[in-house]
């Protein structure tokens, strides 16, 4: 009985400062701002019509989703082998490997983005090295464009993908791979027919998680992107700065809707074993 | 007054009246009435799911029964919270606090009661000495063996002087040799301290060895509550007969009397003797009855019966188990029987698979199941 009482403070906190603010945002998305309609307005879907109807804004939405897909794909391909090694390593190396995968997550995203800026800038490390090796004559534009954004975001999201996949691959008994090997399967066949199929649930969970986090990314895109790398979270920020609060609210609700659908998919469809 | 027994020298009696508990649609315990005398060692015995652990936890107060009364030492405990019942409980995994030393574990109950530190240490050391574990006070549970952990759990439990000791399959995690040694130790400790003890187990040998009385449970109901001897020799129903040891069941119709014994005609047509019920109400002539026969009480001879009162069977298999030979037999009407023959002399060579065998017994060895 006291059990229920203990949950109430948190529920009240979240109701007041999570649900309610989102409710306010939802409410505001159905009205026009004073700038657009000085005499006040009645509830309307105009903001949403603009968000999805105006080609400019629709493009931003599509860019966001495309970015999500690109980063997710990269993270999956780059991260799967690492997750496999991590899952199968039993020696003392394991502690170090896990530490190396987790530690970027505790370092501020601003610091990490700063590091990429130093690496990818016109006079940055990469360009300096390439020019010194004679591979290019002029510095490559690696920053303030989609390239820089994708690199930085893949870097940020890779640990999430790796840890999700590791947890699942650990659950696949190594004896299955051994049996396949004895039956004559080479490493690709073992991967294709044994490991990968059995890891599908984890792959699904990892994909949903990374995609969700990518489309919500703000800092990396702002710092490493340019004027044409506009994604939904940045657009929302822009509109708030421009005092178009109601339109920003509609954009926000759209982003929320997409995220909630993904959250639902992750919770229901991919029942991956949690941290316990 | 010794530190270990505390206030109650002989322990309190435990009475359960009409205890019932359901989980959703499943009956865990139904209409349970039980009276355990002070100082008695009682086992709750039964297969998993029979309700014995539920009953124990209800006595401890960790479960609230849906109905019925839990009475300890004459005091109704239903509304008394767990931490005020003054009972002792040792779980199967001992539940030693991993973050505390042995000493801190053992003194826990006394500390929670606000006893003076100087007194606490003395009592704790005495308790540890009683379970023969002096010298390990500063160790942590993970540094102890299974047997040592169990003794710490006991010392911790006894030092607060509970009126009743509740044990939930405490020997389950030990290997066979250690388990048998601990059974003896536990029983002698219980005798020494004189505390009422209720012991949950699914191992009938353990129950038979240790208990003053056994409460056999099945599907939430009490089947029989009696001494080990009575349970074994005079099981009250088919479940008890079958659960304890190995038992043969012989079915047939009452067909007259032979002095003090009853005559039973089996389905195969043999006429055999069974003991008449002790409570003096014999079943009617022609009534269908079931008799129980323990395998060690059967006498096996080769050949067809020449005397009346023997059972005809055919020997299907012989199993040699070192101290005895087990004969697997089948009657003409298809019933199976097992007979044990002590290996004090070589079995007759005619007793080979396929041979005809006659089976006899003392009249008192065959008991009727009260149906």
């Amino acid at each position, binding site marked *: 009985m006291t059990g229920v009482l203990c949950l109430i403070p948190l529920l009240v*906190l979240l109701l007041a400062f999570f649900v309610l*603010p989102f409710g306010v*945002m939802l409410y505001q998305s159905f009205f026009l701002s004073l700038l657009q309609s000085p005499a006040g307005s009645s509830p309307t879907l105009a903001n949403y019509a603009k968000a999805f109807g105006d080609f400019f804004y629709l493009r931003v939405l599509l860019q966001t989703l495309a970015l999500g897909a690109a980063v997710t794909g990269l993270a999956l391909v780059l991260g799967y082998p690492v997750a496999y090694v991590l899952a199968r390593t039993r020696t003392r190396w394991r502690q170090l490997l896990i530490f190396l995968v987790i530690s970027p997550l505790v370092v501020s995203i601003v610091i990490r983005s700063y590091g990429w800026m130093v690496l990818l800038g016109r006079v940055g490390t990469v360009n300096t090295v390439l020019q010194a090796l004679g591979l290019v004559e002029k510095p490559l534009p690696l920053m303030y464009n989609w390239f820089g954004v994708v690199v930085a975001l893949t*870097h940020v999201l890779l640990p999430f993908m790796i840890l999700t996949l590791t947890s699942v691959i650990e659950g696949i008994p190594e004896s299955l791979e051994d049996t396949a090997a004895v039956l004559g399967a080479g490493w690709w066949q073992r991967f294709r027919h044994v490991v990968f199929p059995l890891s599908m649930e984890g792959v699904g969970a990892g994909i949903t998680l990374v995609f969700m986090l990518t489309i919500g990314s703000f800092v990396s895109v702002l710092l490493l992107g340019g004027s044409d790398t506009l994604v939904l979270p940045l657009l929302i920020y822009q509109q708030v700065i421009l005092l178009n609060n109601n339109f920003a609210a509609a954009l*926000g609700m759209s982003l929320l809707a997409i995220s909630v659908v993904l*959250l639902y998919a992750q919770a229901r469809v991919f029942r991956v074993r949690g*941290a316990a | 007054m010794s530190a270990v027994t505390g206030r109650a020298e002989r322990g309190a009696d435990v009475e359960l009246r009409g205890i019932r508990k359901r989980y959703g649609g499943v009956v865990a315990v139904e209409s349970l009435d039980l009276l355990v005398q002070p100082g008695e060692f009682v086992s709750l015995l039964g297969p998993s799911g029979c309700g014995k652990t539920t009953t124990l936890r209800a006595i401890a107060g960790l479960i609230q029964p849906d109905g019925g009364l839990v009475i300890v030492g004459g005091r109704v405990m239903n509304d008394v919270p767990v*931490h005020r019942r003054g009972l002792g409980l040792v779980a199967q995994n001992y539940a030693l*606090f991993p973050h505390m030393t042995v000493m801190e574990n053992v003194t*826990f109950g006394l500390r929670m009661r606000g006893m003076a530190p100087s007194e606490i240490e003395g009592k704790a050391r005495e308790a540890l000495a009683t379970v023969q574990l002096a010298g390990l006070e500063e160790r942590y549970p993970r540094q102890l063996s299974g047997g040592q952990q169990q003794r710490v759990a006991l010392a911790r439990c006894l030092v607060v002087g509970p009126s009743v000791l509740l044990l939930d399959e405490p020997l389950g995690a030990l290997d066979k040799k250690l388990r048998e040694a601990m059974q003896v130790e536990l029983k002698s400790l219980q005798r020494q301290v004189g505390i009422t003890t209720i012991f949950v187990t699914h191992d009938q040998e353990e129950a038979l060895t240790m208990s003053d009385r056994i409460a056999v449970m099945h599907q939430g109901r009490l089947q029989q509550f009696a001494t080990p001897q009575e349970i074994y020799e005079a099981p009250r129903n088919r479940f008890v007969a079958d659960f304890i040891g190995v038992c043969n069941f012989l079915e047939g119709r009452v067909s007259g009397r032979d002095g003090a014994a009853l005559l039973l005609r089996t389905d195969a047509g043999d006429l055999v003797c069974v003991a008449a019920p002790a409570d003096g109400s014999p079943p009617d002539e022609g009534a269908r009855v079931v008799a129980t026969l323990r395998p060690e009480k059967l006498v096996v001879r080769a050949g067809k019966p020449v005397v009346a009162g023997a059972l005809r069977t055919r020997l299907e298999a012989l199993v040699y188990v070192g101290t005895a030979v087990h004969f697997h037999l089948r009657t003409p009407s298809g019933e199976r029987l097992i007979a044990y023959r002590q290996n004090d002399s070589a079995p007759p060579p005619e007793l080979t698979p396929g041979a005809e065998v006659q089976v006899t017994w003392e009249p008192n060895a065959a008991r009727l199941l009260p149906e």
Partner: protein
Amino acid sequence: MRRDPGALALRLYCGLVLGFLSLPIVVAVGVAFGSDKIARFPPTGLSLRWFGVALSNATFVSALGNSVILAALTTVLTIAFGLPASLALVRQKFPAQPALEAVLLSPLSLPGVLFGVSMLFFLGAGGFGLAWWGLLVAHAVIAVPYVLRTTLAVYRAMDRGLEETAMVLGANPWQTFRHVTLPLLRPGLVAGGLFAFLTSFDNVPVSIFLTTARTTTLPVTIMSYLVNQDFDPIVGAISAVQVALVLALLVVLDRVYGIAQITSFGGQ
């Protein structure tokens, strides 16, 4: 793992990826030790002057102070609200419990901008202005799932029989909590609290909407610096200090409590 040549290539590849993961952090820290006027890696010369510049910059120092206080308060709040909630969630069966837990943990995956923007609108609609408590509470909301997640994991893995035994031995509910539950939950609380602290300390998407010139936080300050000016090594110096502190904390906590196991991010 097998010892065939494929395995060697695999391990090499892992090394490369892990190197990739550490690269920008190493670079950011390395820049701090450089003597150049602009951020360059590897630096042409070595110097510690940028640390001095950073520490004497009033804007950064006050922003640092704000961030520390804000993060500390956030941590206190998250534990105060999250610990009882975790106990309740494990001990009781709530209707639609999986859905309830998914909602409670959702801030972990939902975009941070949404929390910042919605709180901004909420404060505006309520006439509160850019109140300082709005920032604190928004941080608490997005940080509490970290405490919930680790505490739930530890509590669920704990042998509940220990609490029962304590009660049978005579400990009342408060004593049981204090002497048995709490000490055993401590690793979960510490790990969760650490992540809550870091989440608040490093946060940009929420803070950027809710800070004013007076109450600005360190990451927001650094961000506006980076966005507006040529990046000079002063940011590197701040980064180096922060990274050193955080990593040291992580190592110590891992030694004492084994953080890595508690925080496996298995798809939440």
